[in-house]
């Protein structure tokens, strides 16, 4: 009760501060007047009486201060005092303060950025009803480590009909970063349109923001050709005008009407590809269509009935589908980036966390030195009556001030670091950016605030406790020697900790850089210099042979461009991450034996292999004469020959592929080429065969490969102009030097190597500057001792060595612990390495030598300064 009253009173006092003060002023005036009256009554003169009254009361402002001290509003007041005082200390020591704030800013900012990325990728729930109930249907792929998340529409239909443990099952098209074309009033637009089952919005529990969404049609009401657009698309394309409702567009064969706008923030269940338009798949692939059972292009997501475990739903669905399937948590949606990025991002998180820890250890050490330097001030404050807790609070306020300023700046830095990290994403993944970009939300700010407080305690508490404890700086009686010893042990321990963490960081950076180097330096089977590639797509509405003619004509004209040596094309781009894989068979061999025998097929134009720089080992290239009328031929790579035709001369052998059009047609091998990395740079080159484009045509798009005599970039505008001149409707995109494509496949590796190397260097700098600061300070403190040593005959070299030796001892201790720690940590990244073991001696060696050089550099200046001390001046001081 009383505390409530106090609280109210205090709040009152704070809010009505001015009135309360005015009242106190008046009361004091009255008091003085009354006192003066009383004194005048004893016969003193008016003036004398007034003077005496003032003297008795003492300083008015002191009285007011005492009154003000009553209650916890004075606590606040004293906190404010602490803050002001801390601000003064911070300003008095600008070098230290700026260094502290900068390191905290980078440390906290890096952690916040990575946290917000991880949050967006791994933790953020879809903005749907009860996302915890959603499950993703997955199927174990033949490859043990992989899951398939793509199914036929029929799978969805079967689960929808037969399932009891799921309250709803939706199918949504697996989207890639390739937009689709729609026609709005005769004008073509590229949008991310997703075909979804008509119960999509109902099962997810997403209601229309404006207008209406589509629902599962009843028996009487047939489905309508309507579409729902995202709020974001509504803003971009309709300027948030409600006239969008009722607008029509053409998609494929059908006309759709926009009837609804999805709520803001809902961008579908694909994290990588935010959806612009949703259309019911029933309108495009009607029941009974062959596309319902053919092609795995749908994702299936279910909502568990309340109380049903995923395991029960799994066994039920397995029974319905007649093959083993699993359910995985689906509340965070689908993302291929999640699979690719989460492990690297966790490593980056580890790296930035280490950097922050190093920064904390470093600041703790500097704080230790700084508070020791304030020994006298703190001791005096203790002597005049400040309690231990009061001084502790004062010191912690100073730390908190530094970390708070660092934390606020960190939020800005997090923006920047997050953008820098996302800049590593290749352009084709750019669609995911709106979902991943740093958002200033409560989570991110809370995380930064939490880190600020934690770091403050980490670097501020121990020095403050030390300073105020027995024998601490605040104890006037403390014998300097005892305090000094303890403190220097702590300080040494902190230096060693930093060395350990730096060793770990630099080792990680080292092995990742080396493995990137290995990836870049390996024998790839292609030559990436002077090579230009471009995706070329003739208009889809042209007949097939007209498209082929256009492509061939463009190839001919491109070959004639100045600076072009060879112009050729393939139907799937090398290192695009895709390949058409077919089972292959050989005449006269039993089929069962080659059940798992698959090879990647690639359809190429003459000159493609030469343009890519893939060397022929035997036989010939495909020729223009290899067309639909002549014998089907193929060129195989070394792996193909080794795997399927061991010990034989492949030339002249014949094989066929199973599946696809022309299944079973025999192809004669006419050439053998070296292996070439096809899907990515990490895996071994797969077994492949190349066949003439003319013998298996019919692709909608091709990738041109143009070998140039000079800079490939110089040819790209010419190529685009040539295509435009040929037919304005030919789409030429992704015109880049092949080197760029190679780099895109190494996004993750580059991200990891560059980020860990950059943060490693940052950590090293922090640690080196810190070591320098601590040593420089220790030289100042031991001035007298050093002066004495020099005075009694120590040569400057010995003094210098004394300081260097100490740093080197610390370095050696740190490395002794850091080396095994680094090996343990690099084991964590071993799956990301290429062509080297986690304890690669070269990387570790480089890391250690970099560290040694930095340590010596940091220690050298203070040591020199120590050796240069003038003994006479040093001893005369005091």
């Amino acid at each position, binding site marked *: 009760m009383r505390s409530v009253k106090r609280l109210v009173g205090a709040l009152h006092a704070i809010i009505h501060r001015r009135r309360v003060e005015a009242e106190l002023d008046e*009361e*004091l005036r*009255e008091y003085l007047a*009354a006192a003066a009256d009383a004194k005048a009554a004893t016969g003193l003169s008016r003036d004398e009486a007034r003077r005496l009254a003032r003297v008795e009361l003492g300083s008015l402002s002191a009285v007011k201060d*005492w009154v003000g001290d009553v209650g916890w509003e004075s606590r606040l007041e004293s906190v404010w005092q602490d803050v002001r005082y801390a601000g003064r200390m911070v300003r008095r020591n600008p070098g230290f303060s700026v260094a502290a704030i900068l390191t905290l800013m980078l440390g906290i900012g890096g952690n916040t950025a990575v946290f917000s990325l991880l949050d967006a990728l791994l933790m953020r729930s879809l903005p749907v009803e009860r996302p915890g109930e959603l499950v993703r249907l997955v199927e174990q792929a033949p490859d043990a480590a992989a899951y398939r998340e793509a199914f036929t529409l029929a799978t969805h239909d079967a689960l929808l009909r037969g399932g009891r443990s799921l309250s709803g099952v939706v199918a949504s098209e697996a989207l890639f970063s390739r937009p689709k074309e729609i026609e709005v009033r005769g004008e073509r637009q590229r949008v991310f349109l997703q075909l979804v089952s008509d119960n999509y919005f109902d099962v997810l529990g997403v209601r229309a923001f404006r207008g209406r969404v589509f629902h599962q049609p009843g028996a009487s009401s047939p489905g309508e050709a309507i579409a729902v657009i995202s709020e974001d698309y509504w803003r971009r394309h309709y300027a948030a005008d409600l006239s969008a409702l009722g607008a029509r567009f053409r998609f494929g064969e059908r006309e759709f009407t926009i009837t609804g706008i999805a709520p803001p923030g809902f961008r579908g269940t694909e994290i990588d590809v935010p959806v612009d338009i949703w259309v019911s798949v029933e309108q495009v692939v009607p029941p009974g269509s062959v596309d319902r059972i053919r092609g795995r292009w749908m994702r299936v997501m279910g909502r568990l009935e309340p109380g049903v475990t995923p395991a029960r739903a799994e066994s039920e669905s397995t029974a319905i589908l007649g093959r083993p399937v699993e359910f995985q948590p689906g509340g965070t949606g689908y993302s291929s980036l999640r699979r690719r990025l989460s492990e690297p991002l966790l490593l980056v998180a580890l790296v930035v966390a280490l950097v922050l820890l190093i920064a904390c250890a470093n600041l703790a050490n500097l704080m230790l030195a700084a508070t020791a330097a304030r020994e006298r001030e703190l001791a005096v404050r203790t002597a005049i009556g400040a309690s231990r807790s009061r001084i502790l609070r004062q010191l912690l306020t100073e730390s908190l001030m530094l970390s708070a300023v660092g934390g606020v700046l960190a939020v800005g830095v997090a923006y920047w670091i997050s953008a820098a990290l996302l800049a590593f994403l290749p352009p084709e993944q750019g669609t995911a950016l709106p979902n991943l970009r740093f958002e200033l939300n409560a989570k991110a700010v809370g995380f930064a605030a939490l880190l600020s407080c934690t770091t403050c305690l980490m670097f501020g508490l121990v020095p403050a406790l030390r300073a105020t404890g027995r024998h601490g700086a605040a104890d006037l009686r403390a014998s300097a020697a005892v305090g000094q010893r303890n403190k220097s042990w702590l300080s040494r321990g902190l230096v060693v900790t930093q060395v350990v963490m730096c060793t770990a960081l630099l080792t990680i950076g080292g092995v990742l850089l080396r493995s990137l180097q290995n990836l870049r330096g390996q024998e790839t089977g292609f030559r990436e210099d002077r090579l230009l590639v471009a995706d070329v797509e003739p208009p889809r509405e042209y007949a097939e042979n007209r498209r082929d003619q256009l492509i061939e004509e463009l190839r001919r004209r491109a070959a004639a461009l100045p600076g072009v040596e060879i112009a050729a094309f393939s139907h799937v781009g090398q290192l695009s991450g895709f390949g058409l894989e077919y089972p292959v068979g050989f005449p006269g061999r039993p089929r069962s034996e080659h059940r798992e025998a698959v090879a990647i097929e690639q359809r190429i134009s003459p000159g493609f292999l030469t343009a890519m720089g893939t060397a022929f080992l035997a036989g010939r290239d495909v020729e223009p004469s290899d067309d639909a009328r002549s014998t089907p031929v193929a060129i195989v790579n070394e792996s193909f020959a080794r795997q399927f035709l061991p010990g034989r001369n492949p030339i002249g052998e014949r094989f066929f592929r199973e599946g696809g059009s022309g299944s079973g047609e025999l192809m004669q091998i006419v050439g053998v080429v070296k292996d070439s990395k096809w899907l990515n740079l990490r895996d071994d080159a797969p077994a492949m065969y190349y066949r003439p484009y003319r013998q298996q045509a019919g692709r909608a798009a091709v990738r041109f490969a143009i070998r140039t005599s000079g800079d490939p970039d110089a040819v790209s505008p010419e190529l685009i102009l040539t295509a435009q001149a040929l037919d304005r409707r030919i789409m030429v995109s992704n015109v880049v030097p092949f080197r760029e494509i190679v780099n895109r496949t190494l996004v993750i590796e580059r991200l990891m190597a560059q980020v860990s190397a950059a943060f490693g260097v940052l950590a090293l700098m922090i640690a080196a500057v810190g070591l320098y600061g601590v040593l420089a300070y220790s030289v100042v403190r031991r001035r007298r001792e050093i002066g004495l040593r020099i005075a009694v005959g120590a040569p400057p070299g010995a003094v210098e060595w004394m300081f260097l030796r100490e740093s080197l001892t610390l370095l050696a201790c740190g490395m002794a612990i850091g080396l095994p720690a680094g090996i343990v940590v690099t084991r964590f990244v071993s799956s990301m390495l290429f062509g080297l073991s986690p304890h690669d001696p070269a990387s570790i060696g480089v890391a250690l030598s970099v560290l040694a050089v930095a340590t010596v550099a940091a220690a050298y200046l203070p040591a020199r300064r120590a050796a240069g001390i003038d003994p006479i001046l040093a001893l005369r001081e005091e």
Partner: protein
Amino acid sequence: MPSEERGLVQGTLDMLILKTLALEPMHAYGVGVRLTQISRGVFHVNGGSLFPAFRRLERDGLIKGEWRASKNNRRAKYYSLTAQGRATLRRQTREWDSQATAIALILKASPGEV
């Protein structure tokens, strides 16, 4: 905190103020004069001690202040006890009595009594 009041046992000033105000509502100066009078000149309580004490007692709800015209036609803040203040005074007086008796007994004790 000023601590010039001679001989005033710590923590007792609040109790004395409450007692003084229990006799009649009074302004700050009046309380100081009254304390000196009643103690026959032993306690001289300065404004520097009185004002914080008033603020403390007011904050805790034991007294309340009210602006009124004083005898010589000036405005002054008159303090009076609240019900809670009265109760606190009764309790403190009881405690003080028993403590003072106990202390007096101890101080008067002669070797023979132990």
